[in-house]
């Protein structure tokens, strides 16, 4: 079972990483949350019986963990803020490096802005950015499909305002 579970996480690591980054503000807290999500998935895995899509189950467990996660910042007064994780590609040209740097800054800015949304708004925006349909978002969130549209529109407008205020376009 462990082998099977590891394979699932290899395939869906991006969900844990992006949700983790969107619900934390410093590196140590992010690592705590990532671990908590991994442990929660492992403990819930034996109860997963395929009644919903695997990704739907992962989103539910991971988002529920993020929503109930308790920050342990008091234990770490000098916690370092989250910074973009630099990814490396072989044989990059100067132009490619510069483009990559800009892309990293943009991602960083997006995480900062998502982090300023209310917790439930964050969840809905993340699910949308991940390419889930309105029906899937409704199933994960437990709200009606028609409500997803209204809620998403409102959240995206707020996100756009935040991005503009933080200088999106100048990066």
């Amino acid at each position, binding site marked *: 079972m462990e082998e099977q579970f*590891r394979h699932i996480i*290899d395939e869906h*690591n*991006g969900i844990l*990483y*992006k949700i983790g*980054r969107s619900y934390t503000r410093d590196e140590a807290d992010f690592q705590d949350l*990532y*671990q*908590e999500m*991994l*442990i*929660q998935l*492992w*403990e*819930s895995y034996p*109860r*997963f019986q395929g009644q919903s899509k695997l990704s739907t*189950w992962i989103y*539910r*467990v991971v*988002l*529920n*963990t993020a*929503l*109930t*996660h*308790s920050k342990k910042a008091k234990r770490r007064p000098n916690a370092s803020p989250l910074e*973009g*994780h630099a*990814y*490396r590609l072989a044989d990059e040209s100067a132009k490619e490096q510069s483009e990559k740097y800009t*892309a*990293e800054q*943009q*991602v960083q800015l*997006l*995480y900062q802005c998502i982090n300023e949304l*209310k*917790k*439930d*708004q964050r*969840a809905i925006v993340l699910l949308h*950015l*991940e390419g889930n349909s309105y029906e899937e978002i409704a*199933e*994960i*969130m*437990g*709200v*009606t499909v028609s*409500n997803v549209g*209204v*809620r998403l529109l409102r959240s*995206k407008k707020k*996100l*756009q305002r935040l*991005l*503009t205020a933080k200088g*999106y376009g100048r990066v």
Partner: protein
Amino acid sequence: MEEFDLRSMWQGADKQADSWYQERQEELWRQAKRRNEHVLRRIQRMVWMETIFSVVMTIALLGWMLDIVDWLWWTLLVMLTVTIVISYRYYSQFRGQVDEIPSLNIKRSTEEFLHLLRSYKQRMIRLSVILTPVALIMGFAGGFSEGAENDFSKLTTWEFWAISLPTLVLAGVFFYYFTHWYYRRTFGSKEQELEEVLRSLSGEEE
């Protein structure tokens, strides 16, 4: 800003996630074997520890009081057994709910989570209010039995009750407020946060 802007920015996040995971994969799996520190799991461990503690204390207490009068020994046995049975029943229900909650949809999971937190709070308060006088009465009984060689005549004097009753009430009031304070300090902020999430999710449903 157009929709595709957000999506293209998000693709960069995918690359970051993959690269981060590839670099730390082994370390992550090593750390994943550690203890679950989720708030519900912490409560579950606390309830389990309380149950174990009650069993150990009961056995120790009853062993120590083997030579007290029979009626008192059996009363203590029944009271403590009932407390342990209630505690264990609560623990079993709690464990089942804790396992189920993370896989529910966000709204239901938040409702269930809040329900568990509140029921834990209720349980803490009830235990502190009920068990404090019970523990004091047991202490008196032990005192009369061991210290006064089974002479319970003091129980009928007004001086005894004039001191004991206010003490019992004061102890009950103190533990009631102490439990409230302890709960607020430990889980209060989490409860408020989740209430806000639930209000937001439920409000827009109407």
